[in-house]
């Protein structure tokens, strides 16, 4: 198993949830999936300000984590999302589905 995903994505636990830095793609999305697997019943805020790129596999991980949180009584909020990530959410129509708090500019 490669560690490439760990090099692409840095996950730092915070009081509110997690701080993500790097890219969420086919290599690193399993790492994020593992991190979010056990926190479905919590109210988690993910700081996305350090995320420069998300592809469809990363989007799938976020959507599924959001769905698990809804079912378990928790929540998943994406905060400080960057412009490329906001564009992806807009194109995919997920900006009205996922809890999103855009970066203050």
């Amino acid at each position, binding site marked *: *198993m490669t560690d490439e995903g760990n090099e692409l994505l840095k996950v730092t636990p915070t009081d509110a949830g997690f701080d993500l830095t790097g*890219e969420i*793609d*086919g*290599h690193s999305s399993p790492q994020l999936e593992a991190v979010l697997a056990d926190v479905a019943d919590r109210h988690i805020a993910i700081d996305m300000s350090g995320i420069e*790129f998300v*592809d*469809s*596999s990363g*989007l*799938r991980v976020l*959507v599924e984590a959001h*769905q698990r949180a809804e079912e378990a009584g928790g929540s998943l909020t994406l905060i400080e999302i960057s412009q490329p990530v906001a564009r992806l959410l807009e*194109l*995919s*129509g*997920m900006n*009205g*589905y996922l809890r999103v708090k855009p970066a203050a500019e």
Partner: protein
Amino acid sequence: MVPTPTTLRGRVAAVLIAFVAVMVLAAAASTIAFRSWSDSLDDRGESRNAAREVADLRLAYSDQETGVRGYQLSGEPDTLAPYHDGSARAQQLLAALRQRDLGETDLIPCIDAVDEAAATWRTAIAVETIDDPDAAPPTDEAIASFGRVREALDELERVVSADLAGEVDRAERQRALTIAVLIAGLASALLCTALVTVLFRRWVLVPLATISRSARRLGADDTASLPDFGIAELEDVADAIRTMQASLAQARDRAVVAYEALAQSAVLALHVRSQLSNELGELPAGWQVDSMLEPASGVVAGDCYDLGLLDPHTIYLVMVDVTGHGAVAALDALKAKSQLRAALRSRLAPGAALEWLAKERATDPEADLMTALVVRIDVETGVCEYANAGHPPMLIGDGSGVQSLEPTGPLIGAFESTWATRSTTIAPGDALVAYTDGVTDTLGPDRERFGDERLLESLQAVSRGPIEAVAAVRSAVEAFRVGARADDLTLVVIRRPPLVESTPGETVEIATMPA
């Protein structure tokens, strides 16, 4: 050279024999010490009894002497009672003393000396006085005679006291020795138990833990080699684990080969299926099309598209991109594509086709998130009706000026939704471009993505035709790409024929120009 492993059974037997031997030795030493201590206590009791009898003997002779003197003074026969009692007790005590086993060689001669001195006193003094008190021997002679009895008693008492002191000392030493032996035995038992525990851990528990770890690591695909344990039984278990490791590794390798073969086949199937779309031959009314589907390297991605005619006047295009990877995702994409095509042939509008597909997939728990495009084009008018479910926007234009056709609804599978059908017109000479995110997400130097701007720049070639446009995008992406292709690259370009001038002031489309 690998040492021949000894058996665990042999080692356990050796340890057990040693353990039992130590325990037997400790028990024997303790028994002997106890017995010696007990014997010393018996000897001490014998000496104490002898000492008491010597004291009683002294009293018996004193009673005899007192009785004789009383009779000499009073002449009353009753006063002789102490004499007779003392005489009888003295004989009993002397007999008892002779039976004592003190191991003291001077004892019997001392008893004989007392008996002899007492006999002399009785004959010369006591009997003479009792026979005729008035003719009794002189007092100083009587005192001297009885004094010799006392001297003999003193010697007897010294000998018995010395023996008693020796026995008391010996009993004390035996007691200390017995305690020491018991402590040593207990310490040996504890030491042996600790040693057995250590050996059991080293010979059994540690190797078993190593084997268990190795067996568990098999689940993590870690087939680290097991050490040589040097114990036959554990070597058997380790060999079984090694055999299982090798078997699993072979099975894994076969599975990888099979998976790669399946992946290759699935990619090939998708590719062939999509390529078939290009074998439509001539599109009506001079419309041109070209496309590409470059499969990802090492994975089966979920891109596929279909292009054809719904009727002689209507071109359709469906394009889907399942977010998952693998053969299941690829087959899922193929199925979705077929469903959308069927919906269009049932005369559903593009948005309605997406809604119907979404409802179909809502009942399938295995269905993944998916983006999709559905397009139908009137070849006569260039009117293009489309619906877009979270897919990258289609582009429309002649290469110099490009319009982006944004999604008309979210991707399919996250939640219930509706998808609008929108309409635009493809002007003569303009092209409609549809692609998947594999194109714009292609990774280049410094982790930069190919992106929209490079795509638009490459699509300037669309003015020369779809074939040139697809070739330009393909070469630009390949030149930009660093590393393996991580996702499928799918691109479809459909171009409406440009207008040409037939007579001054009149233009007609190329396809309808008279021959």
